[in-house]
C-alpha cells in the first residue's frame, strides 16, 4: 500500500458503467500488470463524479488530471503515455465548448467551479466498497463523537441550529422532525431512509448511495441515537441493483467493525439497519405509502395526521428522511451548525444536489449552494443548450413541479422562491427544454406518468388525472375546442384541491404552469371559431369562483 505512487480513479456509477467503464478498468489493470507497474499504480473504482455527459471519467491522482469519454481502448495510452512517460493524453482532456481550450484540472472546469460539495463530498473520491477509505476521510468520527460526548438533545439542537431542511421535496426542518419523534413516548421507534427516488430523470440519491453509502448509514445511526431508535430501515427501489449491492457491502463492513450492531463505541447505544425493496410504484416515495410498503402491503398513502412521527411503522413513532438529508448530517456534526448555516439563503441553508438533464450540454449531477440562480446552474455549470438552440424552460420538482421560463432564471433558488414561481424544489430533478420542445406535449408526458402512478385510492387522483390526460391528448390531436381548455383548467384545480396525497395534489402542476406561461402553445392546437383569442375563464386568481 505504501508503495503506491499514483491512483487511477475510474467512475463506476450507473451512467459510466453503462458506458463500459468496467472494461476500461479491466484493460487498465491488465496493461499495468503487463508493464510491471501493478505495484506502484493502483486502479480505484469510485462513485459518480457527476459529469455523466462526459463519462466514463478517469482521474489521475496526485497529478490531478481529468480525462473524459475514455473508451476501453484508451487504456493503453493512459498507461503508456501518462503513467510511464509522464505525458498527458491530450485527446482525452475535456475541451471547454465555448473557448475551445483544453482543461486538465477538475477545479478549472466551469462545470465544477461553482459547485460546492457537501452531500457529495466523497463521491468520486473514495472507493465505496471499502469502509477504510471512508474512515480515512473522517468517516464514523461524527458517530463516535455523538454517542460518547453528546446528549440526544444536543444532537437535535445542533441539527436544528444548522437550518437543514428535508431534501426529499417537502423541505420540513429536519431537526424539528427529530425532536417531534424523540418526544413521543414509546419504547420502540424507527428511523427510515427514503431511497425510493421516483422522479424520472433524477438520480441524486442513487449516486450518493452508490458513491458514498457509509455517509447515509452513519447519519442514520446518529439520527437513531437522537430520536431513540435502535432500528433503521432503508427503503430502496428494486430498480437500483448497484446501489443495493453497495449498501449490502457497506452494511456488512460496518457490522464487522462494530460501527453498527450492539454497544456502538462501547456505549449502551445499539443500532442496526435493514434493507427493504420497493417494487416500482412512484407513490411509495410518499412517506405514509412508503411505510405501508415496508409492512409488505399495497403502497397506498394514509391520511395525515397521524404523522409517521406519531404513528408510523407498525404503529410506532417513525422518522422518515431522504438520502440527501442524511448525507448532510455528518458534516453538520463535524463542522458545526454555524458553518452549515453560513451557506445558502435566509430560509434555506446549505447546498442542494440537482440532476441536470434534458437539452443541456453538461448532463450530470451538480451540488450548489442554495441561493444560486438557475441561470448560473444552466449556463455556467450546465454549459447552456446544445446545438446553438434557444433556452425555453426548465422543469424543477419532476412531475409535481412546474416550468420556469427565461424571466425566472435570475431568481435565487430556495424552497420558497421556487414555490412562488409555481414550481417547487422537489427532490432535485432539473429538466431543461429548448425551443423545439412543445410544452403541451411535456405536460401530457407528466400527466401520463402521474395517471399511471396514481395509487387509485382517491377519486380525484384515480379518475381526475385520467380525464386531464385525455383532454391533453385531445388537444394534441388537434380535436379540442376552447371549451376543452376551460374544462382542463377547472379539472386541474379540482384535482389539486381535492386529492388525498401529495402525488395527485401536485399532479396538475405541470398543466397549470405550462398553461400560465405557454398559453399560446395550447391555443395553437385549438381551432375554435367562437373564441379565436381563447379567453379562458379560469385562472389561479379566480379559482374560488370555480369551486362554487
Amino acid at each position, binding site marked *: 500500500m505504501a508503495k503506491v505512487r499514483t491512483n487511477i480513479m475510474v467512475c463506476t456509477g450507473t451512467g459510466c458503467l453503462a458506458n463500459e467503464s468496467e472494461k476500461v478498468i479491466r484493460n487498465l489493470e491488465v496493461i499495468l500488470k503487463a508493464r510491471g507497474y501493478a505495484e506502484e499504480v493502483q486502479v480505484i473504482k469510485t462513485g459518480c463524479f457527476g459529469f455523466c455527459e462526459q463519462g466514463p471519467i478517469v482521474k489521475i491522482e496526485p497529478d490531478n488530471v481529468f480525462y473524459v469519454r475514455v473508451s476501453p481502448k484508451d487504456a493503453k495510452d493512459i498507461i503508456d503515455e501518462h503513467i510511464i512517460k509522464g505525458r498527458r493524453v491530450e485527446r482525452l482532456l475535456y475541451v471547454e465548448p465555448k473557448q475551445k481550450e483544453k482543461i486538465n484540472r477538475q477545479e478549472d472546469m466551469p462545470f465544477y467551479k461553482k459547485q460546492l460539495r457537501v452531500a457529495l463530498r466523497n463521491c468520486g473520491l473514495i472507493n465505496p466498497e471499502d469502509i477504510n477509505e471512508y474512515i480515512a476521510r473522517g468517516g464514523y468520527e461524527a458517530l463516535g463523537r455523538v454517542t460518547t460526548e453528546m446528549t440526544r438533545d444536543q444532537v437535535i439542537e445542533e441539527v436544528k441550529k444548522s437550518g437543514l431542511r428535508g431534501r426529499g421535496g417537502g423541505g420540513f426542518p429536519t431537526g424539528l422532525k427529530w425532536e417531534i419523534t424523540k418526544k413521543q413516548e414509546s419504547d420502540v421507534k424507527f428511523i427510515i431512509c427514503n431511497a425510493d427516488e421516483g422522479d424520472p430523470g433524477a438520480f441524486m440519491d442513487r449516486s450518493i448511495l452508490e458513491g458514498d453509502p457509509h455517509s447515509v448509514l452513519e447519519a442514520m445511526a446518529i439520527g437513531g441515537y437522537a430520536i431513540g431508535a435502535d432500528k433503521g430501515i432503508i427503503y430502496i427501489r428494486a*430498480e437500483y441493483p448497484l446501489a443495493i449491492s453497495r449498501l449490502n457491502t457497506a452494511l456488512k463492513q460496518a457490522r464487522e467493525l462494530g460501527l453498527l450492531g450492539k454497544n456502538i463505541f462501547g456505549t449502551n447505544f445499539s443500532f442496526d439497519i435493514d434493507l427493504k425493496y420497493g417494487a*416500482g410504484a412512484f407513490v411509495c416515495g410518499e412517506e405514509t405509502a412508503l411505510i405501508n410498503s415496508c409492512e*409488505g402491503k399495497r403502497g397506498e398513502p394514509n391520511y395525515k395526521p397521524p404523522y409517521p412521527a406519531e404513528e408510523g411503522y407498525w404503529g410506532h413513532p417513525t422518522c422518515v428522511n431522504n438520502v440527501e438529508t442524511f448525507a448532510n448530517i455528518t458534516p453538520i456534526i463535524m463542522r458545526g451548525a454555524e458553518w452549515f448555516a453560513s451557506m445558502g439563503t435566509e430560509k434555506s441553508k446549505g447546498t442542494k444536489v440537482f440532476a441536470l*438533464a*434534458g437539452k443541456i450540454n453538461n*448532463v450530470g449531477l451538480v451540488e450548489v449552494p442554495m441561493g444560486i440562480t438557475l441561470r448560473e446552474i444552466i449556463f455556467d455549470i450546465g454549459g447552456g443548450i446544445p446545438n446553438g438552440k434557444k433556452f425555453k424552460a426548465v422543469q424543477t420538482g419532476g412531475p409535481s413541479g412546474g416550468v420556469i421560463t427565461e424571466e425566472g432564471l435570475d431568481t435565487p433558488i430556495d424552497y420558497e422562491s421556487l414555490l412562488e414561481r409555481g414550481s417547487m424544489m422537489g427532490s432535485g*430533478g432539473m429538466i431543461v427544454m429548448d425551443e423545439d420542445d412543445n410544452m403541451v406535449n411535456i405536460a401530457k408526458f407528466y400527466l401520463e406518468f402521474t395517471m399511471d402512478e396514481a395509487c387509485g385510492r382517491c377519486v380525484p387522483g384515480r379518475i381526475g388525472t385520467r380525464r386531464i390526460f385525455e383532454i391533453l391528448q385531445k388537444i394534441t390531436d388537434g380535436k379540442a375546442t376552447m371549451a376543452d381548455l376551460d374544462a382542463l383548467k377547472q379539472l386541474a384545480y379540482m384535482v389539486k384541491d381535492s386529492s388525498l396525497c401529495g402525488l395527485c395534489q401536485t399532479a396538475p402542476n405541470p398543466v397549470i404552469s405550462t398553461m400560465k406561461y405557454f398559453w399560446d402553445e395550447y391555443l395553437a392546437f385549438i381551432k375554435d371559431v367562437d373564441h379565436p383569442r381563447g379567453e379562458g375563464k379560469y385562472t389561479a386568481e379566480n379559482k374560488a369562483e370555480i369551486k362554487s
Partner: protein
Amino acid sequence: MEILLKDNVAKDGEYMTEPQAISVTAPAAEDLPKEKFDELEAFIDSMETTKGALIAILHKAQDIFGYLPRDVQLYIARKLGIPGAEVFGVVSFYSYFTTKPGGKHTLSVCMGTACFVRGADKVIERLKEKLNVESNETTEDGLFTLKDVRCIGACGLAPVVMVDDKVYGRVREEDVDDIIREYRSQEGQQ
C-alpha cells in the same frame, strides 16, 4: 378465507370471479417444477418472521420463477395463511411484479423525462412498429418482451434502450433496427 385456503377449491377457482382470474398464458405445470416451489419454501422458512415480508417473498418468487403465475401467488398465500386476494392485491399494485412470462430478451426503453425530451417516444414507437407489439407484450417468436421503464439512471446517455442488462446509449430511431437485428442474428446462429 378458510374455504379459499383449501387446495382443491382454490385450484378450481370456484370462488374467483372471472375478472379476478390471473391470466397465465403458458400451461401452468410446465414451467412450475416442484424444485422451484421447494426453493421458495426454503426461503420463506429461513425468514425470522414473515410479518411484513410479503413483498420480499414476492421478489424472491419472481427471481425463481421469472414471473408470478397464479399458482405461485396462491402457494404463497397458503404458506403465509393470508387470503389469495391480499397477495394478488400487492402483486397488481406494483409494476415490478409481472404475472406473465416474458420473452427471451427484455427490451426496455427508458421513458424517464431526460430520455423523453431527447426523443425516447420516437424510439419506442419505432420498436413497437418493428416488433409488432405494444408495451409489456412479447413478440410472437418469444424473442423479445418490450417494456417502457422509468429512468434507469443513465440520463447522460439519453435516450437509453436496455436489452436485458446491456445499455445502449444515445439511441437514434435508425439504431433500433440494428439492435433488433443483432439479437435476431444471434438467435439464427444458435
